[in-house]
């Protein structure tokens, strides 16, 4: 079920109302049933795959607490193999087969691996990573194994964050299912407002921008550099509003149930550097990689070359996590490259002479660094959006060389919608970034809240793209 559909508009109030009418003893049961229903809206049979991993990780969690210390690692590896194995089959097998076939053709070998004609289970990478974080935390002793199977299943399947995160940690989420959650009007109203804002970002901004991006990227050979550059900038905002919109709806839906999920975005396009960008973008994934990959690899407590290698490899794996295509790997590699350059540059400037340092300081201002970081991020997004590496290279080449063509304009006042949505978004982000003491949806005054809610509702109805289009991150 998608958040931006009429089905969800019926599903959500029923689930929330019944939840508060039920006694605490049965709430987990109700939420689990609702989450199963939510997940089965996509491909019902895939619930069995999810159930399989849930059973494995639940048992591994319990055994991890009861086996001898020397056997713990084996158990953890088994659990990781099971989780990654499912990812490998469903998400990466065809990519692997395709590359092996191309390579064998190139080497004149007679290998021809067959392709699997199966749909990727929705949100597979998200719930797999969430399940893995549970077993790793139990292994590390940071989390007690959950003995209540239903609650553990709910931890993996909790419907607001089931298909596109945030990727939660057991320490943050599991205990909340045990606690009694009374109906707190302010909390529910804040949750609903957050959902409304998320919906605005998705249908008014992201889906509107998507129309231009799709038109241009799908026929990139017909368009000139200016249109491709604008489409690339639009895509940067589209993916942000699409994904952060989803996260806001997820956080809001959980909040209405009295459950706090981790913040996934902190205004990433106000970042001064790529390093800062990753502290603000998809925080639940970047902290996952930090905690379970970067630090075990040695983090920054190793020699400088190894440190840079660690950063680079984490970004490449992060790219590969997004999708089984070389475009995602290159996207990750570019971020790895930018981050390592960022670190090297910081090291270099710390040892630089005074005159040079003055020059650096004069440039190192938000007015320069924010647009520069945005430019780098947008450049990387070209690979993320393109169908193939050659398409991305073509697009970048055209952006850099083809200046003379006419800008592609969509009819029907298209840019008016885009500008309206982006202006509201920019104002809200700037207000939050600068911590201006102006509040709309969270105002203490009911009249201000009322006006803001009605304004957003009218904007969604009048200017939103109401075709229930999918969220970009669902494919991961």
């Amino acid at each position, binding site marked *: 079920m998608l958040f931006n559909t*009429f*089905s969800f508009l019926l599903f959500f109030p029923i689930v929330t109302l019944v939840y508060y009418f039920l006694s605490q003893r049965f709430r987990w049961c109700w939420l689990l049933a609702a989450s199963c229903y939510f997940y089965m809206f996509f491909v019902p049979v895939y619930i069995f795959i999810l159930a399989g991993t849930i059973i494995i990780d639940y048992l591994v969690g319990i055994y991890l607490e009861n086996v001898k210390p020397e056997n713990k690692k084996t158990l953890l590896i088994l659990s990781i193999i099971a989780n990654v194995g499912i990812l490998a089959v469903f998400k990466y097998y065809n990519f692997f087969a395709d590359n092996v076939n191309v390579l064998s053709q190139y080497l004149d070998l007679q290998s021809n691996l067959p392709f699997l004609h199966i749909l990727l289970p929705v949100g597979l990478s998200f719930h797999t990573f969430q399940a893995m974080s549970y077993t790793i935390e139990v292994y590390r002793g940071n989390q007690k194994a959950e003995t209540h199977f239903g609650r553990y299943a709910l931890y993996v399947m909790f419907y607001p964050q089931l298909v596109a995160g945030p990727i939660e940690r057991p320490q943050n989420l599991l205990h909340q299912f045990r606690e009694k959650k009374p109906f707190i*009007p302010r909390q*529910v*109203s804040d949750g609903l407002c957050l959902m409304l804002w998320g919906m605005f970002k998705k249908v008014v901004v992201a889906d509107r921008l998507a129309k231009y991006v799709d038109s241009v990227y799908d026929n990139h050979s017909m368009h000139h550099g200016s249109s491709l550059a604008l489409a690339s900038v639009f895509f940067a905002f589209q993916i942000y509003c699409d994904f952060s919109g989803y996260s806001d709806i997820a956080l809001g839906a959980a909040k209405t149930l009295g459950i706090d999920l981790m913040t996934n975005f902190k205004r990433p396009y106000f970042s001064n550097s790529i390093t800062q960008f990753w502290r603000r973008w998809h925080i639940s994934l970047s902290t996952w990689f930090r905690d379970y990959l970067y630090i075990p690899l040695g983090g920054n407590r190793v020699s400088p070359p190894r440190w840079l290698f660690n950063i680079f490899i984490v970004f490449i794996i992060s790219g590969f996590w997004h999708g089984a295509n070389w475009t995602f790997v290159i996207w990750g590699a570019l971020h790895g490259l930018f981050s390592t350059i960022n670190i090297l540059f910081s090291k270099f400037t710390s040892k630089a002479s005074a005159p040079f340092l003055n020059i650096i300081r004069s440039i190192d201002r938000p007015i320069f660094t924010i647009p520069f970081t945005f430019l780098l991020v947008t450049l990387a997004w070209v690979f993320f959006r393109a169908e193939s590496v050659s398409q991305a290279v073509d697009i970048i080449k055209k952006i850099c060389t083809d200046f003379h063509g006419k800008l592609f304009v969509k009819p*029907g*006042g298209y840019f*008016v*919608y885009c500008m309206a949505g982006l202006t509201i978004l920019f104002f809200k982000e700037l207000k939050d970034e600068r911590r201006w003491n102006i509040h709309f949806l969270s105002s203490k005054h*009911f009249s201000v809240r*009322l006006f803001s*809610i*009605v304004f957003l*509702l*009218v904007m969604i*109805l*009048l*200017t*939103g*793209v*109401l*075709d229930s289009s999918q969220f970009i991150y669902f494919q991961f």
Partner: protein
Amino acid sequence: MKKTWLHISIVLCVAIAADKAIGSALKWLLAHQKSGGYFEMKQKLTQLTPQIAIIGSSRAEAHYNPEIFEKKCGYSTINYGMSGSHLVSEYIALSIIIQHNPQLKTVVLDVTPYELSMLPDYNEVHDFYSLINDCPIVKSVAVQHLPFEKYKLTSSLYVYNSTVPEMLAGYLRKPAKFHKITGFIQSPETDFKPVFGKIERKEIYRESIELLDSIYTICMRANKQLVICVSPYFGDATESNSMAFLKDFCFRKGLRLMDYSSKEMYLKSPELFRDEKHLNYRGANLFTEQFIDDIFVKNGSLP
């Protein structure tokens, strides 16, 4: 708790009031337009009374020149082709035209060689929402085929989704002169580089067949002649399942099928095309002449 329920009730009441008030204002704005896209669409579909109506997608829009029709056979003709439309839009447009035009005698339905291999998208009905208050067919198609649309339509604002700039622009333009409208779009000559390919054999959809049948039924009920035409396409359509079914369909229903998709004259003349799907202005004029000749000389007179 009481305060919470009071606040929820106030939010709901104000939201509904805003929906109705702004919706009514937009309805008034639309009804009083004298120019602009929506006004033109309404006038074209409900006020013009040609004897021959050409229905179809951007291919119809670019391929049939009504001026040539009028010059050669003397029948008033309007090209109702709509860019990006398929059978759903064509069905709705035709229903509206038939309802409002008693003088109509013949309908020329232009289809692509793969028309029935495309699953109909009933979201196309949204393009007609500016006519929802005047043409009941729009609402009935929407309610019948789109899930939850009945409930969504209880909002007064919903029907004006994505229309406001275009609606306001209508007030800034000069009033349109409708006696000059033909609906024909002249495609420029381009340096079309032909890649001659086969139009794949694909599965045909039951829903598309049903729509085609509905178009046939409304024409028959209103006693209008229906001519189905596959205008030139730069590709080999001989193996298309859609074409095979179309031939069979026309034979069973006793309809005229004018198939130009495999005509060598066009397949050997890429200079007549704007792209593989569309003829340019020169090609369109040539095709219109040939179509009229064929339909008059070879198949008897039109209306």
